[in-house]
């Protein structure tokens, strides 16, 4: 690994300034703006963590809700025995463990098995948790009472966001990231040059799952009362896929471009047209496939290339004249 370039330093400093700016929102914005900012921060971390795995591999993971819910439950169950920061780490470890099981079972095989497995994963974990709570504990649901308020959740999320971006960047420069790019381009080639493809994929899926679990843990105090249907909300999985792909996964900050507009749109939809949300989600998926197959950042990159070509053509024409 070489040292970061000047350009990367510039991006890092710019990112830090944005983070600090967002961290100041609680002092100026209204309650509504603050809660919207928390949502945006939450989806930013979720989508970036999702894209870490699904971007290079092109495997559509729908396990987000399962990891998120496990993180939330880890906090609900351990709140009385362990301090909160430790619980966040425990949540990450639990989600990572689940990711490892799913990954080892499916990622040795073709991508379809993986998608199918993750499709019902949240439902599976939800059923098991509900069954276990109704049979072995006194109530279905847990109270999460903490002293944290919206701004504390926001600050924790921003810290995690910084961590996700740095991890993503470090991976993309490491041997693992290089291996993933080869796997994404052609898995057979990757196997032939001696990459343990299954191991690389499982490892990346575990890292991505751990981050999602930690987001669930940080968000737990916001729920106050955690029960299976709200913790394992499958819509989170689908929304993360849409936002990440709308933005594009070929840049680390790509998902962000999708997160901000779509979070605001969804917020308005659930407030004014709750029954129309599925249609909007469906249209968003169709738009991704038919209009923006590489996301907004991909489109911008294509346009950039096109403009360069035009300039070249214009320059050549000028020389000829």
């Amino acid at each position, binding site marked *: 690994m070489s040292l970061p370039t000047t350009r990367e330093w510039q991006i890092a400093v710019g990112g830090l300034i944005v983070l600090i700016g967002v961290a100041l929102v609680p002092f100026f914005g209204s309650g509504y703006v603050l809660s919207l900012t928390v949502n945006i921060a939450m989806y930013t971390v979720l989508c970036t963590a999702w894209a870490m795995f699904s971007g290079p591999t*092109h495997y*559509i993971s729908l396990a987000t809700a399962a990891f998120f819910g496990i993180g939330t439950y880890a906090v609900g169950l351990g709140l009385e025995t362990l301090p909160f920061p430790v619980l966040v780490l425990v949540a990450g470890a639990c989600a990572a463990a689940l990711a490892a099981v799913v990954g080892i*079972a*499916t990622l040795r*095989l073709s*991508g*379809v*098995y993986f*998608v*199918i*497995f993750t*499709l*019902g994963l949240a*439902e*599976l974990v939800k*059923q*098991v948790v*509900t*069954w276990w709570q*109704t*049979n072995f504990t006194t109530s279905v649901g847990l109270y999460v009472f903490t002293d944290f308020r919206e701004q504390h959740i926001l600050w924790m999320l921003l810290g995690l966001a910084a961590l996700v971006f740095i991890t993503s960047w470090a991976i993309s420069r490491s041997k693992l990231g290089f291996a993933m790019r080869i796997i994404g381009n052609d898995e057979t080639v990757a196997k032939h040059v001696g990459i343990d493809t299954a191991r690389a994929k499982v490892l990346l899926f575990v890292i991505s799952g751990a981050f999602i679990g930690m987001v669930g843990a940080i968000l737990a105090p916001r729920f106050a009362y955690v029960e299976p249907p709200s913790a394992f909300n*499958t819509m989170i999985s*689908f929304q993360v*896929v849409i936002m990440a*792909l709308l933005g594009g996964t070929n840049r680390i900050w790509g998902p962000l471009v999708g997160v901000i507009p779509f979070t605001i749109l969804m917020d308005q939809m659930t407030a004014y047209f709750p*029954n*129309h*949300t*599925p*249609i*909007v*989600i*469906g*249209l*968003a*998926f*169709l*738009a*991704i*496939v*038919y209009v923006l*197959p590489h996301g907004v950042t991909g489109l911008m990159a294509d346009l950039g290339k096109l403009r360069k070509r035009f300039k070249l053509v214009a320059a050549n024409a000028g020389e000829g004249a």
Partner: protein
Amino acid sequence: MSIIITGLLLGGAYALIAVGLTLQYGVARIMNLANGENLVLACFCTFWLFSTLAINPILGILIVAPAAFALNWAIYSYALRPLVKRARTRGALEVDSILATFGLLFVFQGVMILTFGGGYYSYNFLRVPFAIFGENYALNRVVAFGAAVAVAIALYVFLYRTRYGTAIRAVAVSPESAQLVAINVPRTSAFAFALGGGLTAAAGALLSTFYTFDASMGVIFTMKALIIVIMGGVGDVRGAVLAALLIGLTETAVSSLIDPGLTVAANYALFMLVLLVRPQGIFGRSNA
């Protein structure tokens, strides 16, 4: 004994859904995640035909299945064929078709929620006891199973005893080679996709006679059907039928012996087993 019979009766409807999906994925190469919505739509249409025009649900299949056939043909030709054309590899087509059918899933679901609301539906059709080996079962389940068997036999004869059926199986094995023996692959793919949709709709019509349905239950059925398809081996109709009966049995056994809330867990346990022991499916041949 009652678990085995209830399980088999449930497995009959699952078999039709899974056979529909295996045709769509195995022949047309489209991973159709909106298949469950197709099923739910058929449930609602059968219910609507029964409650407003008093059309018998079993006869309703004759209306619902051809309608679904036409709808799926249109979906394939207008929405999915462009994806097949632009896909450079099988993997790229898989990602595109998964995302596109997610889109269809939510659009269908949204339209159904707007039309019928989010409530639960069921209706009264042949809700009378019927004795098998001295124990009583609901007649509507038995009739639905009988109808499913009839449809499955008709399909088997079509696929294995007619020229067009053989062409469909040829495309499932290898689209490139099928072209060499003068099979119109795009047309056959569209036909298989539409046929799969029609079969799923038939399953929906049968399911609605004994099952309480709602607009958002489609995903669970898609997932079950997918697990069945993988268990049976992709594109393998006989494997799908056997796997469906197995899933029906395990689900019924788990829900009556342990807890009715653990059916998805039961599906996953079987799925895990298949992935670890025989990822190519019960009848599938190993590629490696």
